[in-house]
């Protein structure tokens, strides 16, 4: 079914490129000739405040996507390394929220009672928070430390209830189904039932929810970096590149357009693909 959908195929191809870039970043930059932190003063005009020489933000044979104003760092290399940051952080955050959301959601839905009360209130509490504001506050008050890990932890801390709530609801319905009763009747214990009987039946929902969560986390990471609380310089990050391009929009629009396009296309591809998967899962269930 996916094969017939050209849009989804294009998305998949683009994502494959981004992932390849992220994985093979050091090799690719060796090929292109410029590292992500390497300065190239010759590529910018110091007398004009550091505007890149040449049209389109200094796009040339040696700098494929042009250069960053002022310091002349190669945009292509920074996009490639920025993909690493985006992908690593969003995948780790998805993994962490996936585990937290599924486990806590199932426990709340299956055991009900006080377990459900505690977990549900915690979820309500976290969901009622203005998450972005709290993320900014927390990240700016925490010491520098290992920024990527901190980002993953903070994003996940506010992200898991959205998955857990859906899982909890589904677990509640599944818990009353015959096969669960049958398992119980044949002597299975609580945890066995939860992980052997209910979890396999939640597969579809988990796959759909997590694929749709990845673009969200990529956006959040870029947003936090844009606001200056993401990964710390000189690490390349798309959000940070967009932030520093803001003041240059009128003299060097490519500095904004390139990372902006990558961020936009990545998020779009993931969303489209997530949507496709949901359709497939729904049809599968119906069939």
């Amino acid at each position, binding site marked *: 079914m996916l094969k017939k959908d050209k849009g989804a195929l294009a998305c998949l191809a683009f994502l494959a490129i981004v992932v390849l870039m992220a994985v093979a970043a050091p090799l690719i930059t060796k090929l292109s000739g410029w590292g992500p932190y390497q*300065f190239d003063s010759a590529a910018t005009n110091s007398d004009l405040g*550091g505007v890149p020489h040449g049209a389109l933000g200094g796009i040339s044979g040696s700098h494929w996507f042009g250069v960053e104003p002022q310091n002349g760092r190669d945009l292509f290399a920074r996009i490639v390394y920025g993909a690493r940051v985006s992908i690593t952080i969003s995948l780790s955050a998805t993994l962490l929220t996936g585990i937290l959301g599924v486990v806590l959601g199932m426990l709340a839905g299956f055991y009900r009672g006080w377990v459900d009360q505690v977990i549900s209130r915690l979820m309500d509490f976290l969901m009622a928070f203005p998450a972005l504001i709290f993320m900014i506050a927390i990240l700016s008050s925490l010491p520098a430390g290992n920024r990527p890990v901190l980002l993953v932890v903070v994003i996940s801390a506010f992200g898991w209830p959205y998955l857990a709530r859906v899982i909890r609801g589904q677990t509640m319905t599944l818990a009353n189904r015959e096969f669960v009763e049958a398992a119980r009747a044949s002597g299975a214990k609580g945890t066995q039932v939860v992980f052997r009987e209910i979890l396999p039946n939640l597969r579809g929902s988990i796959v759909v929810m997590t694929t749709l969560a990845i673009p969200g986390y990529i956006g959040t990471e870029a947003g936090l970096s844009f606001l200056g609380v993401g990964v710390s310089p000189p690490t390349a990050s798309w959000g940070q590149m967009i932030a520093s391009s803001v003041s240059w929009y009128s003299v060097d629009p490519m500095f904004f357009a390139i990372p902006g396009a990558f961020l936009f296309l990545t998020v779009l591809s993931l969303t489209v693909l997530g949507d496709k998967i949901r359709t497939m899962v729904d049809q599968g269930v119906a069939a």
Partner: protein
Amino acid sequence: MLVGLVASTALALSACGGGTTGSSGESAGPGAKAAQGGTLQVLQNAAYSHLDPARGFDGGVNNFYRLIYRTLTTQGAAPGADGTKIVPDLATDTGKPSDGGKTWTFTLKDGLFFETGAPITSADVKWGVSRAWDPEIGIGSPYAKQLIEAPASYQGPYKSGDLSTIATPDAKTIVFHLKKPFADFGSVVAQNTFTPVPKGQGAGNQLDSKPISSGPYKLAEYKPGASLKLVRNDKWDKKTDDVRTANPEAFQWTFGLDPATIDERMIAGQGTDADAIAGTIQAASVARIQTPQLKQRTMTGINGCTTYMGLNTTKKPLDNVKVRQAINLAINKQTVRDADGGSALAEIGTSIQPPTVAGRVDYDPYPSPDHKGDVEGARKLLTDAGFASGFTMTLDTRAQPKMQAMAVAIQQALEPLKITVKINTIDTATYYEVIGTTSQQHDAAITGWCPDWPSGATFLPPLFDGRNITTKGNTNLSQLNDAGVNAKIDEISKLTDVQAANAAYGELDKQIMALAPVVPLLYEKVLMLVGSNIGGAYLHDGFSGGIDLVSVGLKDAGK
């Protein structure tokens, strides 16, 4: 004074040496003659720190104070070196020393009044000066406290009463008794702390919200952080003031504007923005002001401060002079300048003192082709010192894009030497507090320094006198405590000839750089765009290169 204070106000980034580019003197440019009257607009990012003259102390606020306050002497009102010449203001001359320079006598002019109509007497000047000893109020210029004799327990007029070491034999005469002879005391009484305050007034935050004017303008309206309006003080008599032209009828400040917004408004120059001045533009706007029309409205000059990287000489391996010299050699100052905004916004720094300081010698102790860094020479020094395999150091920097970009440039320049630079970003608000606390500062820090008046006396001793190292509020960031340097500082402070002293500071600069406790990086420039109706504007060397506010005005006041 710390450059950070300066950088925090938009206008403040300026001090010295500024001639105007474009067409100063021609009828079209900002240097054209200003007419009387009108309201001059000032667009600014950060509001002034304090309106109380004993509290505020940076290039921007010092410039502003001259509109509402007068001091015993003041800096001239002219471009170039004439701007840093000390001229009489409230006093009839620049002071008469006696007792070998230990006692200084000033006489006040006739016809001086506060905005209230009360005459300004020597008792009011004394009251104003003695406020500098108040621990809560006297946080600005430190010179009165440092130089004038006072009982150790004296805590300002509100807590401790009268200060016996400043005598006022009559209403026109004021006599200061110093701790030790000081040849340049005539420059010291131009500091903000020598502003008269009516005797008995000014306790607590009174002056921060409602200054009592002695200058040509008085406060009409003040919304902290948003706006400030000054109107003419009709009790000020032009005949008593040779310095201030005071052309406009009023000044209107708008604070809290985004720097990018200010640039857009100044480039467009619409409506009342034609009557506006603003601070240095952003690097991204440099390319946009290259048209002839905008160039005509552009003013530029160096700001008289030095941006440098202090190397903490108490940390290993920076305690080794060869390592410090290697770092000095290796840093690519071109990329540091590009990070700051390129050649339009900074010149490359080689000596500690900036070009505007009197007696400064232009030299480059650690030369490299095009200032791009001499990695081979640095490697040789490191090998001699036994650090051929490199080391790791932590560089403190402010959480500000420009400062972080400079830190990255330094990180990049030291990478070939296998020196791993970890960048430690510190919040802007607490940056100077952290790096000034010896237990909290790391191996290196990027900071800056501006002279309080353009003399080596306000530049080298605060930064390199080993006896000035304090555990908090430390300005000797490198914690250099070198017997030779300390002895030289003492020797120079005994010189009675100001010019000889300045020349000696020029030599001391070289002596200090041989020890390489800092890496001079840049002399930053001001580059500002003024409205098309602005006249009489020039960059004042004494106020971090800011437009001299007491001379600027509107070409057509009726507009």
